């Protein structure tokens, strides 16, 4: 279905897409992420849970170097995607972000038409040689975002005119339009109602077929529903990282247990 990258064999063996080792993040003097090491598998939904301010979003934003835009933010340690250190000097964050797509907490469609929202990424990356190819890419992305049937008759309508849930699925479609290999989602359902949330969750499960999906969520039920692996962050530390079923039924760390049973956080 895709152009298969040359390192697929390697990932097929280990099945590890992202490997983070001893990652430290500082905001000025504030040590926000401490010694986080984690391996994120391909074709898996990995959930980051934890109380507010625990650093889960910060860590997520390290994975596509979105923190670069914050002047005072400093990242140490290694983050490898397919064996390449993404903080290497030779890595252009722009190329990285094409490979690691991101969906944000608040739906943030461009104030342009639905079509242009999707077509923007492919256009700037030169993925289509002509209008027909671009149309194809847009349709495929919207289908994969599970929103095609709702918008196919009004592709020229403004993307900001859609409902919140539709906007978020549009943003997901926009993220997958550039054919990334990893999809980062920063609390993608926190601004959505339960029905829209259910649609997005269903979509996340489908997206797992093609991507490594990393999702930050405040809702433990959501983590339990959509993810296969769960990482629990607390005060900048990665407390526990294991299969979701194990985290929620038989956590090893007492802090994890307190959090999932609602005693802290």
């Amino acid at each position, binding site marked *: 279905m895709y152009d298969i990258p040359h390192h697929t064999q390697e990932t097929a063996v280990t099945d590890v897409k992202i490997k983070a080792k001893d990652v430290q993040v500082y905001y000025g003097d504030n040590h926000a992420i401490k010694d986080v090491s984690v391996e994120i598998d391909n074709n898996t939904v990995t959930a980051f849970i934890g109380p507010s301010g625990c650093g889960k979003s910060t860590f997520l934003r390290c994975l596509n170097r*979105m923190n670069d835009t914050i002047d005072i933010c400093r990242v140490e340690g290694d983050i490898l995607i397919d064996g390449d250190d993404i903080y290497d000097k030779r890595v252009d964050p*722009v190329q990285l*972000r094409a490979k690691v797509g991101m969906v*944000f907490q*608040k739906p*943030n469609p461009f104030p342009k038409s639905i079509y242009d929202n999707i077509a923007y990424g492919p256009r*700037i990356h030169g993925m289509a040689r002509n209008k027909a190819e671009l149309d194809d890419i847009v349709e495929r992305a919207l289908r994969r975002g599970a929103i095609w049937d709702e918008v196919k008759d009004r592709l020229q309508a403004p993307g900001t005119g859609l409902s919140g849930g539709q906007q978020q699925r549009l943003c997901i479609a*926009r993220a997958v339009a550039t054919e990334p290999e990893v999809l980062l989602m920063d609390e993608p359902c926190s601004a959505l109602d339960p029905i829209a949330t259910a649609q997005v969750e269903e979509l996340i499960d489908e997206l797992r077929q093609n991507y490594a999906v990393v999702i930050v969520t405040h809702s433990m039920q959501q983590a339990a529903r959509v993810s296969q692996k769960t990482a629990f962050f607390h005060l900048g530390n990665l407390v526990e990282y294991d299969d979701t079923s194990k985290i929620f039924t038989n956590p090893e760390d007492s802090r994890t247990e307190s959090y999932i049973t609602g005693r802290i956080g």
Partner: protein
Amino acid sequence: MTDASMNSVPVKGSLTTLDARTKKRNAAEKRFKAYGLVAIMIGLFFLVVLAVSILRSGIPAFTQAEVRVEFTLTQAQFDEAESQMLKTKAYENLFIAALQSQLEERSLDVTFDPAAIERLLGKTGSTIREYFRDSPDQIGSTVTFNLAASSRVDGYFKGRVSRDTVVDSRFLKVTDLDLVDALVDAGIVVTAFNWNFLTGSDSGVDNPGGAGIGVSVIGSFFMMLVVLALSLPIGVAASIYLEEFAPQNWFTDLIEVNISNLAAVPSIVFGILGLAVFIQFMHLPQSAPLVGGLVLTLMTLPTIIISTRASLKSVPPSIREAALGVGASKMQTVFHHVLPLAAPGILTGTIIGLAQALGETAPLLLIGMVGFIARAYPEGVVSGFIDPNSAMPAQIYTWASRADPGFYEKAWGGIIILLMFLLTMNIIAIILRRRFERRW
């Protein structure tokens, strides 16, 4: 103890009666609304007073008393006049003769002192001579001359001069007004719309009737072109760099503070800077719209930079994140997404900056754009940027400082024109804003 604590809890009355605290709060709110209303009324009152006084003093500048005389010059008369020593005097005598014959035609018997004509109309002889020398083919045919009446005669029509107040002087004698009345009855003196005021150039200090603002409008226009062409790209580029790319350190902080300070620097300082740098050091021509434009660019830049940065700041960061998230570079993010969203604010800031520059007088005084520009429309248009010219506010200033009350009236008229330009620019700003904002 329990009793005491029970008593301290205020007793809640019925909801339909207002307690003292609520009454007090409502009264305070009402008072505040009244203050606001009074403040707005005071502002409106002064606005109305300003508008009325400008219109009352300025409207007369748009009309001018004219003497319409049909005049036929034969070739023989032309040759004879040209052969005389005092040529213009000869033409003047011909003109007076023509005027007299026209009065007789209408069987009006007015006797007047030929010298009165000069008091009424200025030097008619030279005007006529110039006309026939420029277009000799008109010799022999009948030409209607519309000659502007002198300032005092014009003032007689506009109520500035009356029989009670006029004092015999070399400018006007009371008996001259009898002649004027007779000419009005004959339909020879009429009040007409003063096109020359809109299109003409400045005139000599003794001839307010011939003064026009047209040439200085052109001067202002060329200056605005220079200001727009320089300050918009420089200002927008500087703001984008400062807002989106520049690192936050002491150096950019310093620049930021200085830009804010520059916006508050008195304009005359920019004027003397322009005089020193552009004229004395770079030897650019004096009184030229190019230099005026450069000085006004320096003045306008801070305004444009500040408003552009404010509108860039107001673009939500989520849009930047969205663009970066799909792999756009920083520059693509700015130019594809941030700039279009900030465009209405940038445009408004630019037009307000231009309007400010259009009304600026002080720096123009220092670079010599207050010169007396006698060259009339349309020659002034042909080569505009480095030719000496004036600008609207400087022209108004020049008129206001002249003695003849006719110029005072022109100054007010000039202010009306200047305000119309400013109003137009502001309306354009509003329209552009609306249009761009409509793109959701």
